[in-house]
C-alpha cells in the first residue's frame, strides 16, 4: 500500500479543486466531498500504518523519486518516503483534519462562504500531507509555503474584519521571515553536497562531510552542518511560533476556531517540530552540537515565556494559543536535548488534546457568543459534553497520570534530566505553569456561577460534540503507545540514521512531574475558587505586581518593540527610497533633459544671433554698402566724367608727389 502513498495528499487536493469550481452544487455544499476525501486519506494512512506495524522494527522505508527540474546535466527531484516518522504524522494529520472537518459542518453552518472554507481546509490538508511525505527539501519547502498560504487564507477567512485581515498578513510575513532561513539552509545544503534529496542529504557520508567542512561566518567558524541546520531551525522558529517569531500565532486566533484547532494547534505549527525531527541527523552531527543547544534553549525560553503570558489572558482562544506556543517550546526542548522520540511523542499527543481543547473552546464560543472568560462561568451545567471533554483534554495537557500528556511530558523531562539540568528545571517549571493556567481557564469558564446574565449558553449540536468525544478518547489513550518497559513508539520510530540513547523510566522524575502538575491545579483552585482570591486581588494592587502583570499581559510589549525597531523604520526607508528615486535619480534624468533643452536654447540663441547673425551681418554690411554706393549710380554722364577727371587729377598729383 505504501506504493500508493501519493494518493494521500492527492485526494484532498482533488477535493479542493472540485469544491473551488463546483462549490454549492456539490453534496453538503462541498463539505461532504471534503470529508469523503479526508476519510479516504485516513483509510489509506491506517492501512499503511497497519502494514508497517505488523513488520515491527524491520520496516523498510519506501522511497520514490522522479526528476522534476532539469538544469545543466542534472535535475532537481520530487518524491516521497513512507517511513515511521511519516506514518506517525500521517495518522495525526488525517485524524485531526477529519474531526475538524466534521465539526466545521456545525460550526460554519450558515456562513456566506461555506464551500470555500471546506475547499481551503482540503487544500491545507493536501499540502500538510505532502509536507509529511516529501523526501526532498525542495518539496518540503514548497508544501511548507503552501500550508502557510492556507493559513493566511483561513486566518483571513472573515476578511471583512480588519483585525482578521491584519492577522493574516502578519502571520504570512512573520513566517516568511522564518522561511528565508529554511531557504538559505536549503541552499547551504545544496552548496555542500549538490543534492536536496533527503536520503542523500541525511546519509552518514553527507552529514560527516558537512560536519567536517568548516565555514567562517564573520567572527565564528562553524561546520556547514551547523549552518544548514540553524537555517532550517530558523524556518521552524517561524512556523512553530518559537521566540522571537511567535508573535503571529496569538493574532492568528482571528480565524474561525476549527482553523485554530487544525492549523494553529495540531498540525501546521507542529510542522517546524516535524522538520527538525526529519532533518535530525543534520542537527545531531555531533553530540551537544551548537544546533541542538540552540534548539533546546529556544524551546525553553519559548515554553516559559508563553506560559507566563497564558496566566494573564482573558480570551479563551488566546490562552490556548499561548499554551500551544509553550507546548511547541516543550517539543523543541525535547528535540534539543537529544529526545528525538520524546519530541515527536509530545507532538502526537499534543495534537489530539490541543485540537480537542480548541474545538471545545469553539463549542463554548458557539454556545455563548463570547470569547471573554470573564463573561463566562458556570457553563458546566449547560454544556456537559463540552465540559467533560474539555476537562479530560486539560488534564492530559497538564500531564496528569495516566493521560496522554503525562507520558510524553515525562519522556521529555527524563531526556532533559540526563542531558542538561537547566533544561530539565525549565521543563519542571513549565509543567507547573501549564497546569496552573489551564486550571484557571477551566475554572473561569465552566465552574462557579454565570457572571453575565445576558448569555444563555446551550450545548452544541451532535456534529460538533462527537468529534470532541473522539479526540477526548485519543487524549486519554494516545500516550499508551509509549509506556515504560516496552516503548512501542520508540521502537517504531527507530532509524539507522540516528544513534539514540534511551533512558529507563524513572519513578522519581515521573513523581516530580506529577507533583508540580497537581500543585499547579491546586494553586489555581485556591486562587480562583476560594476566598483567597480576594487576597490575590489585593496583592495585585501593589505597584510592583501591577507592573509585572501589565508587562506580561501586554506580551512583554514585543509587538510594540517590533513596531518601533522594524515596521516603522521599514516604512520610513520605503519613503526615503521613493524620495531618492523621485528627486535624485529621476531628478538627474529630468535635469539632463532640462539641461539639454537649456543648451539647445543657448545654441539656438547663438545660432540666431551669432552664427546666423554673422551671416546676416555680412548681408547687412553688403546691403548697407550697396545702399550707400547706389547713390553714385546716378546715370548722369556729366557726373561720371567729373569723377573720372577728379580721379585722374588725384593720380597725377599722387605720382608727381611720389616722384618729387
Amino acid at each position, binding site marked *: 500500500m505504501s506504493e500508493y502513498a501519493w494518493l494521500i495528499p492527492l485526494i484532498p487536493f482533488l477535493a479542493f479543486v472540485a469544491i473551488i469550481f463546483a462549490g454549492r452544487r456539490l453534496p453538503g455544499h462541498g463539505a461532504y466531498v471534503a470529508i469523503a476525501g479526508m476519510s479516504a486519506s485516513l483509510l489509506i494512512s491506517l492501512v499503511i500504518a497497519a502494514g508497517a506495524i505488523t513488520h515491527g522494527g524491520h520496516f523498510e522505508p519506501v522511497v520514490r523519486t522522479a526528476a522534476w527540474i532539469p538544469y*545543466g546535466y542534472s535535475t532537481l527531484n520530487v518524491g516521497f518516503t513512507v517511513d515511521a516518522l511519516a506514518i506517525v504524522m500521517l495518522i495525526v494529520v488525517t485524524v485531526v483534519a477529519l474531526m475538524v472537518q466534521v465539526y466545521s459542518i456545525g460550526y460554519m453552518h450558515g456562513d456566506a462562504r461555506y464551500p470555500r472554507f471546506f475547499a481551503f481546509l482540503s487544500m491545507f490538508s493536501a499540502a500538510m500531507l505532502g509536507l509529511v511525505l516529501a523526501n526532498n527539501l525542495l518539496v518540503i519547502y514548497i508544501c511548507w509555503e503552501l500550508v502557510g498560504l492556507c493559513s493566511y487564507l483561513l486566518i483571513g477567512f472573515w476578511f471583512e474584519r480588519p483585525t482578521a485581515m491584519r492577522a493574516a498578513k502578519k502571520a504570512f510575513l512573520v513566517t516568511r521571515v522564518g522561511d528565508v532561513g529554511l531557504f538559505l539552509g536549503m541552499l547551504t545544503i545544496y*552548496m555542500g553536497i549538490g543534492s536536496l534529496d533527503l536520503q542523500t542529504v541525511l546519509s552518514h557520508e553527507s552529514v560527516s562531510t558537512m560536519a567536517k567542512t568548516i565555514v567562517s561566518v564573520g567572527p565564528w567558524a562553524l561546520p556547514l552542518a551547523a549552518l544548514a541546520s540553524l537555517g532550517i531551525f530558523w524556518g521552524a522558529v517561524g512556523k512553530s511560533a518559537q521566540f522571537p517569531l511567535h508573535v503571529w500565532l496569538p493574532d492568528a486566533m482571528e480565524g474561525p476556531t476549527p482553523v485554530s484547532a487544525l492549523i494553529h494547534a495540531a498540525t501546521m505549527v507542529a510542522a517546524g517540530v516535524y522538520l527538525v525531527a526529519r532533518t535530525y541527523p543534520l542537527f545531531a552531527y555531533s553530540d551537544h552540537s551548537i544546533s541542538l543547544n540552540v534548539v533546546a534553549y529556544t524551546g525553553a525560553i519559548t515554553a516559559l515565556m508563553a506560559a507566563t503570558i497564558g496566566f494573564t489572558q482573558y480570551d479563551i482562544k488566546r490562552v490556548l494559543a499561548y499554551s500551544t506556543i509553550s507546548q511547541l517550546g516543550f517539543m523543541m526542548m525535547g528535540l534539543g536535548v537529544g529526545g528525538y522520540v520524546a519530541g515527536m511523542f509530545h507532538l502526537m499527543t499534543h495534537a489530539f488534546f490541543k485540537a480537542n481543547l480548541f474545538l471545545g473552546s469553539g463549542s463554548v464560543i458557539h454556545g455563548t457568543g463570547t470569547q471573554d472568560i470573564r463573561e463566562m462561568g458556570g457553563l458546566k451545567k449547560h454544556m456537559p459534553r463540552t465540559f467533560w471533554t474539555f476537562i479530560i483534554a486539560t488534564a492530559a495537557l497538564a500531564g496528569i497520570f495516566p493521560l496522554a500528556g503525562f507520558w510524553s511530558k515525562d519522556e521529555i523531562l527524563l531526556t532533559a534530566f540526563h542531558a542538561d539540568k537547566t533544561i530539565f528545571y525549565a521543563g519542571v517549571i513549565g509543567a507547573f505553569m501549564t497546569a496552573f493556567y489551564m486550571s484557571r481557564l477551566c475554572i473561569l469558564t465552566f465552574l462557579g456561577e454565570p457572571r453575565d446574565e445576558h448569555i444563555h449558553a446551550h450545548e452544541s449540536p451532535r456534529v460538533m460534540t462527537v468529534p470532541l468525544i473522539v479526540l477526548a478518547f485519543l487524549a486519554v489513550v494516545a500516550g499508551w503507545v509509549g509506556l515504560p518497559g516496552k516503548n512501542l513508539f520508540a521502537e517504531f520510530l527507530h532509524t539507522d540514521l540516528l544513534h539514540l540513547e534511551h533512558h529507563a523510566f524513572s519513578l522519581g522524575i515521573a513523581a516530580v512531574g506529577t507533583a508540580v502538575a497537581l500543585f499547579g491545579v491546586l494553586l489555581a483552585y485556591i486562587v480562583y475558587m476560594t476566598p483567597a482570591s480576594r487576597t490575590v486581588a489585593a496583592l495585585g494592587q501593589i505597584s510592583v505586581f501591577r507592573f509585572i502583570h501589565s508587562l506580561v499581559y501586554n506580551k512583554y510589549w514585543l509587538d510594540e518593540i517590533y513596531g518601533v525597531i522594524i515596521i516603522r523604520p521599514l516604512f520610513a526607508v520605503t519613503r526615503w527610497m*521613493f524620495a531618492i528615486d523621485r528627486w535624485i*535619480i529621476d531628478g538627474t534624468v529630468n535635469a539632463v533633459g532640462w539641461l539639454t533643452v537649456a543648451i539647445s536654447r543657448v545654441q539656438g540663441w547663438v545660432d540666431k544671433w551669432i552664427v546666423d547673425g554673422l551671416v546676416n551681418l555680412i548681408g547687412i554690411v553688403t546691403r548697407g554698402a550697396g545702399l550707400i554706393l547706389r547713390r553714385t549710380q546716378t546715370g548722369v554722364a556729366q557726373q561720371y566724367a567729373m569723377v573720372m577727371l577728379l580721379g585722374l587729377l588725384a593720380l597725377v598729383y599722387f605720382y608727381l608727389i611720389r616722384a618729387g
Partner: protein
Amino acid sequence: MDSWILTTITFTPLLGTIVLMLIPREKVSAIKWTALLFSLPPLALSIILWFAYDWHKGGMQFTVNAPWIRDIGVYYRMGVDGLSVPMIFLTALLTTLSIIYSWIINERPKEYFWLFLLLATGMFGVFTSLDYFLFYVFWEVGLIPMYFLIGIWGGARREYAAIKFVLYTLVGSVAMLLAILAMYFNVTDPATGRHTFDMMVIAAQKPFAHAHNIQSLIFWALFIGFAIKVPVWPFHTWLPDAHVEAPTAGSVILAGVLLKMGAYGFLRVLLPTLPWASTHYWTAIAILALISIIYGALVAMAQTDLKKLIAYSSVNHMGYVMLGIAAAVSPIAAVNLDNRAVALNGAMLQMFSHGIITGALFLLVGVIYERAHTRNLNEFGGLWARLPLFGSIFITACLASLGLPGMSGFIAELMVFLGTFKASVLFAGLGTIGIVVTAAYLLWTIQRILLGPANPKYEKLLDMDGREILVLTPLVALMLLFGLWPAPILQIINSSSVQIARLFTIGG
C-alpha cells in the same frame, strides 16, 4: 518548414498593417477582427515552433540566410534557440491577448491596432534575427509604435512619459549601435574574408579578445543599451512614468515583452560575444541587480498608485534575471557548469514568468480601473466580497508574483538563488531580503484592495466579463502549469543555458 516559419511569424503582423490600411476607419469591428486575425498565425506558429524545436540537439534551428546588402555584409539571417523560442511564444501570446483586451478601444481604433501590429513585427524580429543590422532595425521598430501608443492613448501626462521613454531608450540604442559598428570593423567572416554583421560569427570570433580596454568600452556601451531596456537600477525611472501613462495593453506589452528585450540582449549578445568583459565586471552587474531587487521592492512598497507599484515591482523582478546572469558568469572556479546553467535557467524562466505574471497584473489593473476609475490604493477596500472572481484571480497573480511555490515565479527565483549561492553567499543572502519585502508589499496591496470592510462607493461594481476572463485564463493557467511542471519549458531553455554556461566554465 525550416525556411519560412520565422519569416511568417515575424511578418504576418506587418501584412496585417497593410490590410488594415485598406479598411475604412468607420468599420471599427472589421478593424478589430482583422487585427486579431493577423495576430493568430504567429501565435499558432510559435506553439508549433515550441514543439518542433529539437532541444536534444540544441543550437540555432530554423535558420534562414539570404543576402540583403551583400557589399557591407548585411544578410537576412534568422534562427532560434532555447533562449528565443519561449520569448517568441510569450510575444505572440501577449500580443493576441492585448488585442482582445483592447476591444474596448474606440478612440482612433484604426491607428491603434495598426501600431499594435507593427509593434508585434518589431518584437518578433528582435527575437528571431541573427544579423546585427536586422536586429537593430527591429529593435527600433519596436520602439516607435510604443511611443505613439503612450502618447496618443495614454493618461494625463502621456506626452512627457512618451518622450521620456523614447529619448531614454534611444540613448541606449545609439550606444548599442556604436558598439555594433566597432565589433563589425573588428571582425572578418572567415568564409568571405569581409566584415560581417552575423551575430553568430561575431560571437565565435570574439572581437577585441585581447584588447581588454576596448572590450570594456564596447561592453559598457552595450550594457547601457540593454540595461536601460531591462531596466537595471539606476536607469529605470522611465518605466514607472511610461507604465502609469500607457494604455492597459501597452503596459502589458511593455512589461511583458519590451523589458525582456534588454535581458535578451545580455544573453544573446553580451555574454557570448564579450565573455572576458562579462566575467570581469560580474560584481558590478550583480550589485546593480541586487540594488534593483531590494530598492525596487522598497520603492514599490511606498506607492499608492497600483500601476506604479507594479511598475516598480518589475524593477524588483527583473533584478532576479540580472542576478542570475551575473552569477552565471562569475569567475569563481568552484562554480561548475551545472551551477552556471541553473542560474541561467532561472534568469530565462524568470523572463518568461515575469512576462505572464506582470502581464496578468496589468490586465487586472485595467479591469479595476475601467470600473472604479481610480488606481489609488487607499480608495479601495473590501472588493473581494463584491468581485469574487476578480479578487481570486488578483490574489493568484499577486501570489505568483511574490514567488509562491506552485507558480512559475518560484521555480525561476529558486534556480537563480541556487546558482547565485555558489558564486557568492553574500549576494544570495542579500537577495533574500527582496523575497520578504516583495511579500510585504504584495500582501499589503491585496489587503488594501480586496480585504477589509466593503467600500460603499463600489457597491455597484460588476465582476469580470467574458472578454476579461478570456484574456486572463491562459496567463493564470501558464503560471500554474510551469509552476507545477516546469520541465517542458526548462528543457528548451536548458539547451541554450548549457551552451552559454560552457563558455564560462573552466574545462567546460
